[in-house]
C-alpha cells in the first residue's frame, strides 16, 4: 500500500506555499490582469456609425459559440484533432487550477478513488497533448517560425505541471505536492507576463469580432432562398 501524505507534518516551505504563497500569487495575478485589461480598455474602440445590416446580439452570441462549433471554421474542421487537443488541454488547465485551490482544505475528500483517477486521467492526457504540441512546435518549420522562447518555456512548464498533477493526485508524496504547487504558484506570478495571458483577451476579441461582423451582416452566416 503506498505511503500517505501527512498534511499536518508538511515542511515549513511546503506549508507556506500551499497555504499562503499560493494565495499571494493569485492576488498578484488578479492585480496584474486588472492593470493589463485597463491598459487595453483605455485605448479608444473603433466604432461603427453606419446603420447596422445584421443583428449585433445574435452575431456576438455566434462569435462566442464558434468555440464549441469546430464544424463552423475551416481550420478546426480540417484539423479536428487539434480542436480536441485544445478542448482537453484547456479543461485540464481549469481542473489543475481548481485542484490547486481546493486540495489544501479538501484533501481528505479528494482521496476518493474516482477523484484521483479523474485527475490522473485528465492531467495525463493533457501532459501527452503538451508533448505532442511541443514536438509539433519543434519539428514543423512553420511552427518554429512563430515560436518565441516564451512559447517553448510555457509549453514545457505546463506539460511538467500536468505530469506533476498525475503524480500528486493520490497524495502520497510531499515531493509531488511541492512540485505541483510550486509550479502552480510560479504560473500565477508569471502568467500575466507571458503569452498564456491570451485567454483574458479572448472574450474581448470575440465580442468585438461578433459586433463588427454582425453589424456588416457577415455573422451569423446566412443563406437566402434560391441562392
Amino acid at each position: 500500500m503506498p505511503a500517505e501524505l501527512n498534511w499536518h507534518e508538511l515542511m515549513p516551505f511546503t506549508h507556506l506555499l500551499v497555504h499562503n504563497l499560493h494565495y499571494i500569487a493569485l492576488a498578484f495575478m488578479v492585480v496584474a490582469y486588472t492593470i493589463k485589461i485597463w491598459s487595453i480598455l483605455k485605448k479608444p474602440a473603433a466604432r461603427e456609425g453606419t446603420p447596422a445590416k445584421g443583428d449585433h446580439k445574435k452575431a456576438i452570441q455566434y462569435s462566442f459559440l464558434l468555440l464549441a462549433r469546430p464544424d463552423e471554421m475551416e481550420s478546426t474542421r480540417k484539423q479536428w484533432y487539434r480542436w480536441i487537443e485544445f478542448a482537453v488541454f484547456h479543461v485540464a488547465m481549469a481542473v489543475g487550477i481548481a485542484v490547486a485551490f481546493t486540495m489544501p482544505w479538501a484533501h481528505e475528500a479528494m482521496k476518493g478513488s474516482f477523484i484521483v483517477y479523474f485527475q490522473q486521467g485528465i492531467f495525463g492526457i493533457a501532459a501527452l497533448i503538451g508533448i505532442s504540441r511541443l514536438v509539433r512546435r519543434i519539428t514543423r518549420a512553420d511552427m518554429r517560425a512563430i515560436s518565441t522562447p516564451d512559447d517553448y518555456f510555457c509549453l514545457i512548464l505546463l506539460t511538467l505541471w500536468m505530469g506533476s498533477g498525475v503524480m500528486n493526485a493520490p497524495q502520497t508524496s510531499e515531493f509531488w505536492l511541492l512540485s505541483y504547487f510550486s509550479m502552480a504558484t510560479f504560473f500565477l506570478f508569471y502568467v500575466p507576463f507571458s503569452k498564456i495571458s491570451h485567454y483574458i483577451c479572448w472574450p474581448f476579441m470575440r465580442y468585438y469580432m461578433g459586433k463588427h461582423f454582425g453589424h456588416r451582416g457577415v455573422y451569423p452566416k446566412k443563406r437566402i432562398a434560391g441562392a
Partner: protein
Amino acid sequence: MAMSEKAKEFNQLFKERLNRQHVLSLTACAHCGMCNDSCHYFLADNDPKMTPAAKADSIRGIYKGHYDWLGKIVPFWVGSRQVKTDEDLERLKDVVFGSCTGCRRCTINCPFGVDMAGIVSLTRSCLVDVEVAPEGVLTVMKDQWETGNQMAVSKEDYLETLEWLEEEVQMELDDADFKVPIDKEGSDFVFVINPREVKYAPLSLQAAFKIFHVAGLDWTMPSEGWDNTNFGLFSGKADLGGHMGNLAYNHAKQLGVNRMVISECGHGFLSTKWEAPNWGKANPLPFEMISILELMVDLINTGTIILDPKKNPLPVTYHDPCNLSRSSGLTEEPRFCLKRSCLDFREMIPNRADSYCCTGGGGAMSMAEYAKKRLSVAKKKADQIRETGAAIVTTACHNCVDGLSDLIKHYDLKYEINGKSMWLPVKNVCELVADAIVIPMELPKRKPRVKEIVKPVKVLVIDDQPDIVDYLEALLQDNGYEVITAHDGDEGIEKAKADRPDLITLDVSMPGKSGVTVFHELRNTPTFEDIPIFIVTGVVDFRQLMYQKTVEAPEGFMQKPINPEVFLMTVDRLTDRTRQKVAVEESGKPA
C-alpha cells in the same frame, strides 16, 4: 545605433493610432498556428515566413517593444523588436504591402479572431506617412486627392464616355429614348462606379445601364463624386478615405436621392458603404447604400426583370471577392443572380467566406514590385478555378477581374470552344444578367456600326504576330474601319507618320523597338501626341506599370486574349471624337 528620423516618426504615429481592437489583436495571439493553412501566401510554397502569425509578429514585435512588460526588459524572450532604421521600415513595407492582401481569411479561421487586415492597415498608414510605400500606391493616392478619382479621369473624358455608352445602349436596344441621366435631381438612386469601368472596361457599365433601362428605374449618374473606390482603405489613410467618401456623399445629398447604388467593386463597396462614413464623420447619411448585386436580386425577385438562362449556356463559376464575402456578407446575392442567368453554374470549393483571395486585393494591382510574388501565390486560386471546369469566371469586383485575368494567363487556364482553346474570360455578374435579360418587346438586332461612320476612320494596327494582325484587320474592316498594318515598332512609327491614323492599336512585346518605346516616341512627337493609343498586350505586368504611372496611361488598354466585343467597343469609343469632328466638318451637325 541612432534612430532614423523616419523611424522616429513611424514609431510615434504607430503609438498614436493604436485603437482597442488593434491592441487586442496584437496582444492575443497564442501562436497556435491554426491560421497557417488559411493564407494563400503560405500555401503557395510553405514558406514559414508567410504564415499570418509570422507576418503579424513583424508588427506585434513593434507593439511589444513599446508596451509589453517583458518585451521591454527581455525582448528576445517574447519576440519584441524595434524599428530603428530606414531598412527596418523597408522590411516592414515588404510585409504589409507585399505579403498580405488583408483578405481576412486568417481572421475567420483564428479561434481569437486576430484581425490581420486591421493591424496591416494601421502599419500601412504609418508607413505611407513617412513615405515608405510602393510608388504605385502613393501615385494613386495623389490622383484621388487631386482629381477625385483613382485613374485621374478628367470630367470631360468621364462625361464623354457616358455619352458614348448612351449611344451603345441605344444601339443595342434600338431605343433612341435611352438616356444616361446626369445629375438628375430627386432620382431614386445615384450610381457610383469604379474608374476602371470608365477607362478600360465599359462592358459592366453598359450592362448595368441596360438593366436599369429595361427595369424602368429612376436613376442618375453623378457628374462629381462618382468614384466608389477608395485608396484610403488600401493605404489605411482615414483622411483620404473620408475625403473620397464625402465627395460621393455630398453630391448624392445635393441630388436628393433615396439610395446610392454601388457598382461591382469589393473594396469600393466596403469603403463606400462601411468605412468612409466613419472616416469622414458623415453619419447619419440621408440615403441608403446598396450594392448593385442587391438591387439585381430585388429586380429579379419582384419580376421587374425576366431572365432567360439559356442565353448563357456555357459553364460559369463565381469568385467571391474577399471584401464582399468576408467583410460585407455579400455571398448569396451574386449566386442568386447567376443561378438565374446561366444554365450551368459551378461552385468553386471552398467558396463564400472560405474562398481564397484572387491576390488582386483592394489595390494590390498598383504595386508592380510585388507582381511576380502576387502571381506565384495565386496558385491556390488557379487550382480552384481549374477544378470547376468552367468556361467563364465571374466575380463582383473590378480588382478581382484584373487579378483573375492575370492568374488565368500565368497558370494557363483554358477552355475549349469549337476546337479552339481559349483563356478563360472573366466577367462581372451584371454582364451575365444583362446578357440573360429578356427584352420586353422583340427588338431588332443591333444596327451595323458601319452605318454610323460618315467617312472611314483609319486605324493603324501594330503587332509582331501576323495572325493577330490579320485577325484585327479583318475584324476592323468588317466593322467599317480603314486599316493599316505594321509588324514591328519601326514600321509602326513610319506608317503613323506617313498615314496619320485616327487610332493606333499597339502591342507591347515586339522584337526591336518595344511597344513602350513606340508609345513614348509618338507621345513625344508634337504632331502625333493627340492620336489615341490603344494598348493590346499579353504582357501581364503592363497593367501594373500603367496603374503606378511608370508608363503614361494610354487611352485604351486591353489584355490578350482579345475579346472582339470589348475590342470593338474600345475602338468605337476612342474614335468617337474623330467621327464627331468629321460629321461636323461634312454636315455642320454632330454625328
